[in-house]
């Protein structure tokens, strides 16, 4: 076996190992100088991104990859899975793609954004740790491993949220985040123990195969969903999110979007795969619960966004509203799938709704991420985030203004941008479940447009203010980072079919066919 084959056969492990090793090398390389360190971090994330693409191609070509850690000997012995595995299907790799795009862009953006700050070596170490945690969360096939990666992600992101420890509000936001995610994670561990005690397994595929939906399983399901939705920032458990997004440095807000979505991936994985064989059993449909949570999230997010006066806080509430769409579409799909009377074959709109939602995961990450970067750029140039004090910036920061317009159109679902493609799929399909749902969805999208037009008017338009006379365009690295995201947004908006058939459809199939996830159990490994 030559060297390239050897590397490729271990690619799934390398996805986590490379950023993790990079994280611990970063403080050493910082000793040389800042420039080398920045190039090193961008390089590490770039290499990880290449590996994600290689693994993605492999997964989309040949189906689910199961990577066993430690040994090539038999993994299932005496009906027990004795090793830790990474199980990568199309949905996992889709989420990994979202995370790595955000982390890579954030590392480029940080170069300019943090130029004058101290403590950069710790910042980059934590950024790489957070990336490793997010990738681990979406790739793992083992529940306890999932818990460990959740904790790695939340410790690293809490420390990063409170990066500006000289600001009392930032420390408060970091404390809030770590407090809530620790309680959430402890209850997830409790639920994992409930399942382990009954089925003597921690492997997701093995558990999904043997689950029988006893009383304890129901308790575990409720704990899983509420804890993961809390970490995902779904209303009514969203109180930490505007603080964390609003107070963190802008590139961290960008990566946090990915961390939140990794938790939402957890909700879907639990519902569709772990409980995939028994999800039609409960009398109350979990699909409707997801739909209701999605609707409340959209409405509350948009209404709270309207009354904010802080730039980043407003975008954070916009991000809450966007999360609602993701829950809405997947909830619609689950309602049909979990109802054997209707069946997926006679209701093709369920699959359309899920396609819209899964596509919206990446669109939401890109749109909200771009807006956060614009807010960071405005803060970098003016040291001001209050909308009342800003104005007339379009004259001095023309590229930033263009990027804001792209983000604004994309987040509110205006045609040439990517947000339109996914939201249209969600509107069309939820209309067939219940017209009122899609009316509320369209309404909150229009309200989002109103909110962001308001920011555009008060930050970028208006007369030139005297105090912003010497404001300059932000450094090149920040413009490049925003440019990358903006061009991906336009590309997705112009060719949505390409993305949906190549990336989104396999991911939806991975969700609605849990039997593919369990294949290796019967096939032997």
């Amino acid at each position, binding site marked *: 076996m030559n060297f390239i084959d050897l590397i490729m056969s271990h690619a799934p492990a390398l996805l986590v190992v490379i950023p993790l090793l990079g994280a611990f090398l970063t403080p050493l390389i910082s000793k040389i100088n800042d420039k080398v360190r920045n190039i090193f971090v961008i390089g590490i994330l770039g290499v990880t991104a290449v590996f994600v693409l290689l693994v993605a191609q492999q997964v989309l070509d040949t189906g689910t990859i199961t990577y066993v850690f430690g040994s090539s000997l038999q993994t299932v012995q005496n009906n027990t899975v004795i090793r830790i595995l990474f199980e990568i299907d199309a949905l996992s790799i889709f989420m990994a793609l979202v995370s790595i795009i955000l982390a890579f862009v954030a590392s480029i953006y940080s170069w300019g954004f943090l130029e004058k700050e101290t403590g950069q070596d710790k910042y980059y170490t934590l950024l790489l740790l957070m990336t490793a945690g997010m990738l681990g969360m979406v790739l793992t096939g083992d529940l*306890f491993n999932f818990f460990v990666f959740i904790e790695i992600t939340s410790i690293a992101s809490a420390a990063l949220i409170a990066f500006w420890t000289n600001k*009392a509000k930032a420390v*408060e936001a970091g404390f809030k985040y*770590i*407090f809530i995610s620790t309680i959430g994670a*402890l209850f997830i561990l*409790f639920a994992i123990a409930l399942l382990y005690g009954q089925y003597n397994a921690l492997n997701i595929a093995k558990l999904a195969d043997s689950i029988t939906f006893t009383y304890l399983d129901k308790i575990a399901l409720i704990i899983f969903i509420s804890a993961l939705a809390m970490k995902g920032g779904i209303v009514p458990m969203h109180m930490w999110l505007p603080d964390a997004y609003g107070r963190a440095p802008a590139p961290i807000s960008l990566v946090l979007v990915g961390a939140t979505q990794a938790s939402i991936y957890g909700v879907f994985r639990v519902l569709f795969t772990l409980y995939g064989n028994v999800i039609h059993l409960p009398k109350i449909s979990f699909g409707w619960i997801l739909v209701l949570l999605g609707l409340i999230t959209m409405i509350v997010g948009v209404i709270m966004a309207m009354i904010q006066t802080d730039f980043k806080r407003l975008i954070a509430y916009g991000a809450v509203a966007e999360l609602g769409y993701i829950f809405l579409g997947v909830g619609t799909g689950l309602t049909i799938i979990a109802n054997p009377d209707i069946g997926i074959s006679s209701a093709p709109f369920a699959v359309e709704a899920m396609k819209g939602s899964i596509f919206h995961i990446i669109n939401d990450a890109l749109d909200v991420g771009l807006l956060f970067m614009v807010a960071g750029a405005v803060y970098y140039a003016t040291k001001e985030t209050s909308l009342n004090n800003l104005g007339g910036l379009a004259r001095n920061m023309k590229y930033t203004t263009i990027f804001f317009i792209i983000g604004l159109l994309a987040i509110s679902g205006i045609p040439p941008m990517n947000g339109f493609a996914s939201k249209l799929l969600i509107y069309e399909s939820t209309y067939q479940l219940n017209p009122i749902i899609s009316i509320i969805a369209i309404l909150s999208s229009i309200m989002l447009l109103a909110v962001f037009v308001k920011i555009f008017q008060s930050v970028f338009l208006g007369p030139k203010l005297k105090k912003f006379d010497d404001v300059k365009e932000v450094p090149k690295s920040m413009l490049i980072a925003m440019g990358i995201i903006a061009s991906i947004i336009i590309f997705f908006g112009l060719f949505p079919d390409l993305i949906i058939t190549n990336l989104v459809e396999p991911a939806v199939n991975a969700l609605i066919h849990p039997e593919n996830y369990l294949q290796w159990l019967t096939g032997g490994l």
Partner: protein
Amino acid sequence: MIANIPYVAVAVLIIIGLYTVIFRKNLIKMLIGITIIQSGVNLFLVSLGYREGGIAPIFTSVPNTDSAMMYPVPQALTLTSIVIGVAVLALMLSFIVHMYRHTKSLDVRQFGGDDQ
């Protein structure tokens, strides 16, 4: 019945912890609440792994009798969870130190208020 006592203890610990987290106003006390929940969950994991008459799974000390060896996964999980808990606790305490420096108070009611 006597075998269920650990599980009762788990429930009591988690409920005390949740009560502390929700109703106490002092940041340090809330932190203690989290550690109590953590102890409850760890106790749950360890008591799941207990088998009467089982022995530690050390290869060189396999007995000739037919007493069962333990499957050591729950103990491994508990150790990992304790280590993670220490890291989280240290981070939260450092946050509390920073907040105390800013506001000279540990009362949780001083926070928030910028959300209209």
